[in-house]
C-alpha cells in the first residue's frame, strides 16, 4: 500500500463568486481528479453553515459521463462550520472502486452557506 494522498477539488463553476474556492450558489461545481487513488474517501465540507443547500456527488471514469455517488443536504451536516460528511468509494463487499473524476454540484441554495470537497486515498501502484 502506498502513501496517503489528499486532494482539494477545484471549482469549475462559480455563479456567485463569493469565494473562488468554495461553492455558495446554485450550480456551483467542483471537480477533483482521482485517477491515481484507491481506497477513496470523499469529504464534503461545510465551511459556513447558513441556510439550505443540496450537494450532489457523481463520479466518472471517462471525464464525460457521470454516475451518481450520493446526495447530501445541509441538514445532513452537523451544525456549525468545518463540519464534514464522509463518502467512500467501494462496492458492497468492501472492494475499493475507482474513478477518473469526482464532481460535486450545489443546488437548492438559500442563505450564505459555503461548501468544498476534498478527497483522500492511497496512491495506486504505478504512480509516484
Amino acid at each position: 500500500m502506498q502513501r496517503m494522498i489528499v486532494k482539494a477539488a477545484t471549482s469549475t463553476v462559480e455563479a456567485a463568486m463569493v469565494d473562488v474556492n468554495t461553492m455558495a450558489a446554485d450550480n456551483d461545481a467542483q471537480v477533483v481528479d482521482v485517477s491515481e487513488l484507491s481506497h477513496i474517501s470523499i469529504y464534503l465540507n461545510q465551511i459556513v453553515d447558513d441556510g439550505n443547500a443540496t450537494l450532489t456527488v457523481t463520479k466518472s471514469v471517462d471525464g464525460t459521463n457521470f454516475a451518481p455517488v450520493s446526495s447530501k443536504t445541509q441538514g445532513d451536516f452537523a451544525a456549525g462550520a468545518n463540519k464534514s460528511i464522509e463518502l467512500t468509494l467501494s462496492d458492497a463487499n468492501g472492494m475499493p472502486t475507482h474513478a477518473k473524476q469526482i464532481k460535486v454540484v450545489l443546488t437548492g441554495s438559500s442563505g450564505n452557506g459555503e461548501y468544498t470537497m476534498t478527497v483522500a486515498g492511497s496512491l495506486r501502484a504505478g504512480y509516484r
Partner: protein
Amino acid sequence: MSGKILTRDATLTVNDAEDGFLSSANDVAIVDVRDMHSITLYVNHATDDLGQPNGTPASLDLNTVGDTIDTVVEATEPGTAGENITVTFVADSDEDEGELAVAGTAVTFHFKDGVTTVSNFEDAVTALTGDDDIIGVATPGTGASTLDAAVKAELDLDPLAVNADTVLEAVTAGDDGNNITLTFVHSAGAPNAGSLTRVLTAFTFTYKGTVTTVQNFEDAVGALTGDDALIAVKTPGTGANVLADTDDEFGPSNFANGDSNDEFGPEPLAGGTDGEGEFDLVLETTIDGTNYAPLATLDETDFEEGSGLSVEIPLVNEYGMMKRVREVKITLTAIEDSSKFSMTAVGVEG
C-alpha cells in the same frame, strides 16, 4: 502485506485537569495517522470509576433497630461500598446533645439517656466533614423525641418459689435478655450447694432439697464466668432460706422486660448499588486538518465494566473497505464521574 506495524498514542490538545488523560468535559486528543493504512483505533477506558455516581446509596432506617429513633440515614456516596458502614447507638455520654464518633466505616453515637434527642443525632450527622462525612440524613425523624437507654431483662424468683426470693437480671441490657430462662429442679443426688448449668440461654439450678440455700444459688450465679456470665444477682434474697424438695421447683421461666430501646449496633447500612457514571466520547476524522467528519460516538454502554478495557474501532467504511485519513480526533464531550480515557491508533506503515 508489507510494512511494519505502527502504534501511536493520541496527543492531548486540551486537558483541563492536566492529568494526561481525557478526564474532563471538552478534553481533546488527536492522533496523526496519515502514514498508516489498515488502521484500528483503540479507545481506552484507563480508569473506570465504578460506583459513581448513578448508583444507590446504602441506607438504614434506624427505626427498624431502635425504638424512639426514627431517622433514615444513608451513605454519602452511592455504591455497594456504603454497605460496609455500620451505626451503633450507646447510652454512655455525659453530654446532653450526645457525641458522634466516626472510626473508618464505624459510626457510633454516644447519647445521654432520656436527654439527648433525635435532632441532636441528626445535627451531629449533618455536621460531619472531611473523611468523617460518610453518612447523611436521608429522612429526618421526630426531632424532639429523646433517646432511651436499654433496660436489662429481669426475673424475680419470689412469685415462682416458696423460699427463693432473689431478683436476677441479664448482664447485658436489651431485649435479647428476654430469651434467658431459669429452671429450679430438686435432686437428692445434687451437691449440697447445688449446681447451675447453662445450655444456650437456658439455665438450670439443680439443688438438694432441705440442704441447698438461697445463698448457695446466689453464689453459683456470682461464680458464672465467660460465656456463661449472662445473668447476675440484682437484688439478693434471703440467703439463709433453705430450698424445699418440691415447693421451690419451677420453670423454665423467662426473664422479662428487657428492652433495647435506642441502644443497638453495630448495624450495617444496606441496599447500596453501584452505577456507572455517564460519559460521551465523540470521534471524528479529517483529511485536511480543518474539516472533521463524524466517525463514532461512544458512551458508558459501549465499554465493559472495569479499568484498562478498550473499545476497538477499525477505520473502515460500512462495507469493510479500509479508509485513509490524516488525523483522528477524540473529544470527551460529557462526563459525570472520574473516569479517564486515552486513544491509541495501530496500523501498517505506508
